[in-house]
């Protein structure tokens, strides 16, 4: 079967009552994964990390994302920029591990130095020993290669090909839907609120599992007592995001009655509600009255994905030592939930080696969000949605 055959993609994009899921090759074929890097990631806005990891002036963090060496740097004025992590001279990797730079980004090879805004500051001995200028070396044209970036809810998004619509346009729907969370400071819970899972599955299966609530009573029975299936609803914004919401969010973290403080000024909907969305392609987000979380999917190949989970709270106070125990219990609670999903996404991945499997049939009622995601993937590969 030709993965890119228009008829195959059209079948995925049919109404949910008739559609098949994406064909196996989208999960098992390394060539398709290579194509996805361009069609689904480089030409859209993908999350590469979190601004809290470059919290102070001069903080620099190398990031390898889909094989691209990138460098995240916070300037002295607080601006966070993303560059290709290579010197304009010989292509040497500039920064190999997280660090705090003092005054410059110095290439470890011939010591070409760049300012934190990427401009080329000096080119030692470029015209011979002790001669740092040469007519052929125009410093104004040899700054670091900056990658278009945008920070949203502390996530660092990049548009690698530089051609996508502005992030505010790309994410307009979620920014509007979650305006009460999107335009306020979020307070990361430090190491107690940060963990990573490595799963043996294609990254899209993590998206698919996250955005539907159909599986909750079977895979997460612990939620049944206070967050029942019938309390959930589907959320679909074609081409941009999909997921689920619940009308019953009732935090029970340690049974002590102690509760994290809530974000100020939230609307009534959030008093008992919570929502969980995938912003295509690779961030899984959750918002609640007292915390948000983000899961960055970092594909390591067609069959392996790293999930980076970061939890944020409503106030600086929640970051304090006296809340550390609560934060640890909270992170452990979420980790338990996400670990419960691992056998499912890994099982679906192995299942995609079944040569006669046709991509599957959707529940017309319960799988709307998954179908919405598949429609986006197929639409981008067909050229219907750009890319």
């Amino acid at each position, binding site marked *: 079967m030709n993965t890119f055959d228009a008829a195959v993609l059209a079948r995925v994009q049919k109404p949910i009552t008739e559609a098949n899921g994406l064909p196996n090759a989208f999960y098992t074929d390394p060539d398709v994964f290579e194509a996805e890097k361009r069609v689904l990631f480089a030409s859209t806005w993908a999350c590469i990390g979190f601004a809290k990891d470059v919290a102070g002036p001069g903080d620099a963090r190398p990031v390898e994302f889909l094989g691209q060496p990138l460098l995240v740097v916070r300037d002295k004025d607080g601006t966070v920029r993303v560059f290709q992590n290579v010197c304009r001279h010989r292509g040497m990797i500039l920064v190999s591990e997280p660090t705090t730079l*003092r*005054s*410059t980004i*110095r290439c470890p090879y011939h*010591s070409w*130095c760049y300012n934190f805004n990427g401009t080329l*500051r*000096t080119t*030692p*001995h470029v015209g011979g*020993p*002790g*001669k*740092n*200028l040469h007519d052929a070396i125009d*410093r104004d044209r040899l700054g670091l290669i900056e990658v278009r970036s945008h920070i949203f809810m502390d996530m660092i998004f990049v548009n690698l090909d530089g051609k996508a619509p502005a992030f505010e346009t790309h994410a307009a729907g979620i920014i509007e839907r979650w305006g009460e969370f999107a335009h306020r400071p979020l307070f990361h819970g430090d190491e107690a609120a940060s963990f990573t899972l490595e799963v043996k599955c294609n990254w899209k299966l993590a998206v698919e599992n996250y955005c539907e609530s159909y599986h909750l009573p079977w895979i997460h029975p612990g939620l049944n007592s206070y967050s029942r299936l019938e309390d959930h609803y589907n959320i679909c914004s074609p081409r941009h995001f999909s997921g689920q919401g619940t009308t019953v969010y009732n935090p029970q973290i340690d049974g002590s009655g102690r509760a994290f403080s809530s974000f100020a000024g939230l609307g009534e909907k959030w008093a008992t509600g919570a929502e969980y969305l995938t912003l295509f392609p690779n961030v899984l987000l959750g918002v609640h009255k007292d915390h948000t979380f983000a899961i960055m999917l970092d594909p390591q190949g067609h069959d392996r994905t790293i999930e980076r989970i970061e939890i944020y709270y409503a106030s600086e106070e929640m970051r304090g030592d006296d809340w550390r125990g609560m934060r640890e219990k909270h992170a452990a609670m979420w980790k338990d939930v996400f670990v419960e999903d691992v056998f499912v996404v890994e099982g679906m991945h192995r299942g995609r080696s079944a040569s006669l499997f046709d991509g599957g049939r959707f529940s017309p009622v319960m799988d709307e969000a998954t179908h919405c995601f598949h429609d986006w993937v197929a639409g981008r590969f067909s050229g219907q949605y750009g890319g």
Partner: protein
Amino acid sequence: MAESEHNAQLQRALLAAYAARDIARLPGLYNEAGLLREAAGDIDAACFFFTLAYVYGLDAGDEETASAAHARLVAHGRER
């Protein structure tokens, strides 16, 4: 102190700083080496050392030494 002895002393100090990975010491030592060569009229050698003082000064956050070395390089037409 004789110039050759000063040179030798600087050389030892530089090697010790490298051995100890004491990058913070390098800008000052290289600037000193640059001034020594400048006083001797060897501008190419002086600017070689000033360049190292400038770069390591930037790297180590020693803005004062970096700025001083940069000024000497600009004065000699080696930097802008």
